[in-house]
């Protein structure tokens, strides 16, 4: 930048190196553990790096699929995240558009209640929702989890999309369509929506990650193993009193964390800054 000195440059790199080190060190210990045998991981002098003393093995990753139910858990994670993302988007796209572009009595009030849902302590609402789902017979089912997660990620979807509709789409494009005789609905579906596909995709990504990472809802609403998602399964593996296979547990954590981190790494150029306000 301005008045730049070499010393300042070095300080910046030093600072970034420290931050990177702190950000990645806990990950490192997990990745290392996933690549060695359980006896090596649970030893007093366990190796610092996986390749030390010939400890390296990828057994954890293969036995994770054969000895545990992880295929089911990860499959559930994918089903639940995809469906709740779709459901949330179907509701959030028109809603966000209305907040951003249309004016109607009560708009501001609704908008601020949406902001409030963004900041709500969700653990509180699980208590009455548990009762409601009990009455409706939705406890312990994937459908119940999907509905709950869709509601949970919907505020974020509305928030991201309304920001985009507000700033990303020039108002005169719609006006041109309206003058041409298209109805407001037509203008939305034929003009605005196709133009918004990149923003919708980015929002879908965040919604998917929100659902994928969610623990609380699945943990509370399900009790059977067959409906567990990966997050909850990992919790139960660690909570069980049987001999822990640390390397398998850590391999599961790696697979849980990898997709969101990679997605963000690939897309942060497009969406990182759109997160402002979530």
């Amino acid at each position, binding site marked *: 930048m301005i008045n730049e000195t070499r010393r300042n440059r070095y300080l910046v790199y030093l600072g970034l190196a420290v931050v990177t080190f702190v950000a990645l060190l806990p990950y490192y210990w997990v990745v290392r553990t996933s690549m060695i045998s359980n006896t090596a991981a649970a030893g007093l002098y366990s190796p610092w790096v996986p390749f030390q003393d010939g400890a390296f093995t990828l057994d954890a990753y293969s036995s994770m699929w054969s000895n545990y139910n992880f295929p089911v858990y990860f499959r559930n994670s994918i089903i639940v995240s995809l469906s709740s993302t779709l459901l949330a988007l179907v509701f959030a796209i028109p809603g966000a558009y209305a907040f951003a572009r249309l004016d109607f009595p009560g708009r501001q009030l609704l908008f601020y209640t949406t902001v409030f849902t963004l900041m709500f302590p969700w653990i509180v609402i699980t208590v009455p929702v548990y009762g409601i789902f009990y009455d409706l017979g939705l406890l312990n089912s994937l459908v119940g989890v999907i509905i709950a997660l869709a509601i949970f990620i919907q505020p974020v979807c509305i928030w991201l999309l309304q920001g985009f509709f507000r700033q990303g789409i020039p108002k005169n494009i719609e006006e041109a369509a309206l003058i041409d005789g298209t109805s407001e609905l037509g203008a939305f579906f034929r003009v605005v929506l196709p133009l918004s596909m990149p923003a919708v995709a980015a929002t879908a990504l965040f919604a998917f990650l929100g659902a994928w990472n969610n623990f609380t809802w699945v943990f509370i609403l399900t009790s059977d193993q067959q409906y567990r998602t990966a997050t909850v399964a990992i919790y139960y593996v660690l909570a069980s009193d049987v001999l822990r296979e640390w390397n398998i547990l850590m391999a599961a954590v790696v697979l*849980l964390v990898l997709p969101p981190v990679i997605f963000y790494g690939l897309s942060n150029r497009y969406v990182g800054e759109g997160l402002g306000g979530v």
Partner: protein
Amino acid sequence: MAQETSTQARAERYLEDRTLRDRIEENWVGYVFIVPVFAMFTLLFYYPIVRGIRMTFTEYSLGGVNPFVGLDNYAWLLTNDLFFYSLGWTLIFVFSTTVLQLLVGLMVALLLNELAGRRRQWMSAVVMSPYFAASIAGGVLWYWFLHPNFGFITRIFVELNMPPIYFLNEGLWPFVSLILAQTWHDYAYAAIIYTAALASIPRAQYEAAAIEGANRIRRFRDITVPHLLIPTIIILAIRTAYNISEFAQPFQMTGGGPGTKTMLLSILTYQVAFVNLQFSRAYVIGIAMMLISMTAAVIYVVSIRQEEELYI
């Protein structure tokens, strides 16, 4: 100029003349678009909140009759030592994590701001990665990192012939560990918002100040700091609310233990509801949590209102 003002005045008068019905008729599309969202929020947000409040005046059990007990649940809360202990620790936890996340996030954003192009994208992907990991994964990560037998720090201590520290049990360590782990997981939120805010400051302002002879520190104080004011309020409000509701990571790390030493309100709500099956009492604790996050939400809404009004 004069004509412009009168046109504006006429437009304003026109707006006032319209009745509510006119506005509804003009904007029916808006309602069509908003009704599905509102229906969904009603089903799983507004209705549960109200139902929960009604529940607190009864002794609620699943599918059973729920006898009316008046204010008993509130009286229970106000005479419960664990609740007040937990409230105090939650306030300490929320305050320290929010402040630390803000400071670390600001530092990261300022550092990233010095980079450009691809290098910056890669760097931010790496540095922001903790935020995108599931919080339950964050819990396992730190549980393992601090494990008294096989953790990373213990491994260093073994090398140095030192006894292990029980980070999640001993003395003040569990509090420190939970706060630092939470800071690690969420500082990137502040960093993302600050990075966006820094990027939006016009470079010309810095250049003009540099020509005037302002040094780095003065430029930071007079140009950067004012631009970061609103983002700071937003981060404080949102992080306060999120840190109150944080459940998975502390739950995985200590579960409120040892005993009830690190019991956060979120974990207490869970335990009272789903372990003790006292739903009404759990919701009363929840109301206390809601009040704290609602305060944060009000601050947030007031501070974004400025921006919001630009668009209306």
